[in-house]
């Protein structure tokens, strides 16, 4: 005990204090949600366990297994194909494969329901009606809209691999397939698992698609407990359990990874050489990478364009353009703030020497696993507390009546986005900063330069691509965000996602197509930019 205190005294520096402040700032809403665990669930918990929980668990389990399989299949294999083989349209396929990321998964779900609907395209073309609104349909919809997370991280990894190991493997007599299975795949594990964790969080967090398809998952349960059974404490209890499960998955993965310790230490930037293959193989591979692009992007997009064509006269107004503009502004602003905080967390953790705080700092990235509506609640509680006290102060001491100072402003909304999407900015920057290693910074420190100077002059320029990726990913996510925005958005401010939701929840799905298309197109440009950044490095 005494030793701990000595360490505490010795290792505390200004960075520790700053870090702790920032972690608290980010963590309070999350901590508040966890604190509710102490109170336990409400009285309907028994009912939930008896009648519903097994259904939720089984459904969530199937979804996780199914989407893991298909996102890895499409994500990893397409990444390998476009990096390794000279196939037709290789350049175009590289970026086309990322595009499904621009379509919110609930919109993809709605469009597929439309395609296979009564009178939908599928029925018109094949004269056959099949039902896709089931487990398998949901798994496919989610996989096709989420595999880019795996694709992007894995491809970035392959591009950074040196060609030496592959050549060594070839020299030792291993064939192309054996090299891939025995060498490349294990090496790429940290990369695709990183992407997969993002996929799983999205899957567990999905509400719109699962609800529409009539499949009850953990998140459906959270809302049922909160709204239908009127027990907030049970809802928060479920949410906290969900976060706990995700946290355990992340920890297990981290542990195993560090035990195996596959890291490429060779600082050799000779990229993997592309190889020529026969025409037939080329065609087969091209067809394979076309599958996710067609199903994840092209088909839903066609359906949306068709709907937008039917309804644009009603939907496209001056007000609509105004909303589009507001949406863009808020998303850009939130992306910048989120990336700033990700940088704070990563670098302050590095500079501070207290181990415990480093672990505590991980709380900051849990927000991604918590449903947006629950985050909104976690944000409302402390901000309202502050607001009410400010109002009381003004009332009692200054004798003036004022309204809420911080609630109902853009700032609270951006704060909530930051908490929700910090993990999205954190992962690419952290990965990149790990790759830089310690030696650069240590050399600079030895030369008598401070941490801030080192960061500004050496690390920041090297991290630029990662920072840009982080900005783009957060931007696209905020553009798509819905439940949190609904609760926290100020008056007279609207986002495209909210507009799309308003139509969809009124069963006017065709009318929702135009705002959805706007979200998609504003997402495509930055995603193309992201592709450039990854390719350049």
């Amino acid at each position, binding site marked *: 005990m005494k030793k701990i205190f000595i360490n505490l005294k010795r290792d505390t520096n200004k960075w520790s204090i700053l870090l702790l402040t920032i972690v608290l700032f980010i963590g309070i809403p999350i901590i508040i949600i966890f604190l509710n665990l102490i109170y336990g669930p409400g009285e309907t918990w028994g*009912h939930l366990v008896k*009648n519903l929980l097994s259904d939720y668990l089984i459904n969530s389990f199937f979804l996780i297994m199914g989407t893991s399989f298909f996102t890895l299949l499409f994500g990893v294999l397409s990444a390998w194909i476009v990096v390794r083989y000279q196939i037709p349209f290789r350049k175009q396929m590289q970026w086309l494969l990322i595009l499904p990321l621009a379509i919110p998964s609930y919109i993809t779900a709605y469009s597929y329901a439309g395609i296979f*609907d*009564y*009178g*939908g395209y599928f029925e018109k073309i094949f004269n056959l*009606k099949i*039902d896709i*609104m*089931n487990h398998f349909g949901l798994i496919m919809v989610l996989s096709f809209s989420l595999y880019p997370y795996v694709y992007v991280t894995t491809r970035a990894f392959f591009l950074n691999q040196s060609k030496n190991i592959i050549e060594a493997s070839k020299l030792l007599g291993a064939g192309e397939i054996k090299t891939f299975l025995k060498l490349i795949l294990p090496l790429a594990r940290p990369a695709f698992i990183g992407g997969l964790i993002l996929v799983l969080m999205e899957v567990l967090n999905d509400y719109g698609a699962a609800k*529409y*398809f*009539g*499949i*009850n998952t953990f998140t459906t349960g959270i*809302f*049922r407990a*909160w*709204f*239908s*059974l*009127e027990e*907030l404490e049970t809802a928060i209890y479920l949410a906290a359990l969900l976060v706990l499960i995700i946290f355990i998955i992340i920890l297990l993965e981290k542990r195993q990874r560090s035990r195996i310790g596959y890291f490429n230490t060779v600082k050799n930037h000779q990229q993997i050489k592309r190889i020529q293959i026969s025409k037939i193989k080329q065609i087969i591979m091209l067809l394979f990478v076309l599958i996710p692009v067609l199903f994840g992007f092209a088909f839903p997009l066609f359906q949306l364009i068709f*709907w937008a064509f*039917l309804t644009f006269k*009603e939907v496209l107004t001056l007000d609509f353009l105004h909303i589009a*503009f*507001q949406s863009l*502004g*808020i998303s*850009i*602003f939130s992306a*910048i703030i989120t990336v700033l905080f990700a940088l704070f967390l990563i670098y302050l953790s590095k500079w501070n020497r207290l181990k415990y705080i480093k672990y505590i700092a991980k709380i900051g990235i849990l927000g991604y696993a918590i449903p947006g509506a629950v985050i*909104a609640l976690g944000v*409302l*509680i402390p901000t*309202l507390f502050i*607001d*009410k006290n400010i*109002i009381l102060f003004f009332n009692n001491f200054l004798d003036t009546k004022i*309204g*809420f100072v911080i*609630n*109902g*402003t*853009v700032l609270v909304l951006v704060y909530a986005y930051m908490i929700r999407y910090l993990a999205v900015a954190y992962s690419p920057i952290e990965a990149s900063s790990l790759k830089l290693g310690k030696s650069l910074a240590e050399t600079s420190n030895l030369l008598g330069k401070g941490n801030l100077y080192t960061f500004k002059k050496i690390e920041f320029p090297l991290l630029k691509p990662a920072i840009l990726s982080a900005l783009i990913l957060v931007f696209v996510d905020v553009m798509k965000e819905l439940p949190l925005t*609904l*609760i926290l*958005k*100020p*008056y*007279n401010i609207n986002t495209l996602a*909210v507009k799309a939701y*308003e139509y969809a*929840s*009124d*069963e*006017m799905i*065709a*009318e929702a197509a135009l705002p959805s298309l706007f979200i998609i197109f504003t997402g495509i440009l930055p995603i193309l930019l992201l592709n450039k950044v990854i390719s350049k490095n």
Partner: protein
Amino acid sequence: MKKYLLVLILLVSVIACKSEKKEIKAKSKEVNVYTHRHYKADQELFAQFEKETGITVNVVNAKADELMQKMSLEGAQSPADVLITVDAGRLVRAKNKGLLQSASSVFLDKTIPSNLKDADNHWFALTKRARVIVYNPEKVKAEELSSYEALTDKKWKNKILIRSSDNIYNQSLLASIIANNGEEKASEWTKGIVANMARSPKGNDRDQVKAVVAGEGDIAIVNTYYIGKLLNSKNPDEVIAGKGIKVFFPNQNDRGTHINVSGAGVAKYAPNKQHAIKFIEFLASKKSQEIFAKVNYEYSVNKEVVSSELLKSWGEFKEDTLSLTKLGENNKKAVIIFDESSWK
């Protein structure tokens, strides 16, 4: 790059500040509306209200549950003046949570029938929707249908289409059955319906109608105004679906067809109470009610208003006059019965 970033940040800050100013500046004439309704008809009416009275309407749009949560967290400082929900159960819940206050209005007293408003004037219904049976006329004759209860008969096995129990309209329907027939009968009813479902519940009300036309089942339970929306859809396939079914009003020989309402109440801590009452009166006025009926295919609560042609074409019907308060009181019981009967 840096320059662009700076410009962007500036730009965004300007937008952000602009919107905040609007709020902080204490407008003398405004009404803050928390609403679950997000229809075109509403937006038209809000604009009309602003034009006529000069009172600015500030709108927060979200699900009723989330709005209520927000109001209760905001407490006495809540800026909300009016809460609008799309079902009676939520209004009752809002009253029980102490989120609303009594509003006295001669006009509202006179206009809105007593079963369609709160006994203490905490809320008032604005529009009505009937939850009806629709059927495929090629497979089912109207004579075969009678009541919600009769749908549990074995002859409807694999023939009934209805959406998930997550949906508030289903919850209210079951709440009305609990109020009319008791919990035990209600539980038997849900089990009977689940046994007769053509498929596991999925999609929305429109999807149930389409499934009837596609032949997945013979009958569906849906809200009337979705049929109006289908018939007036921009998508020709939806119009065909709307035309492919016929409407049947159940329980005409006993209590009447279940109706649900959307309605409004004055918030407990409304900073602009007078404006709030004026606003609700405006929505209940003949002119507004006609717009609800015409643009949104809802039934009017104002007796003076003549139904639209479409609503007339479905015919007159007897409504269940059960006090809407009962729907709110029985909502939680309904959800638990649904779960116990494995109605997804």
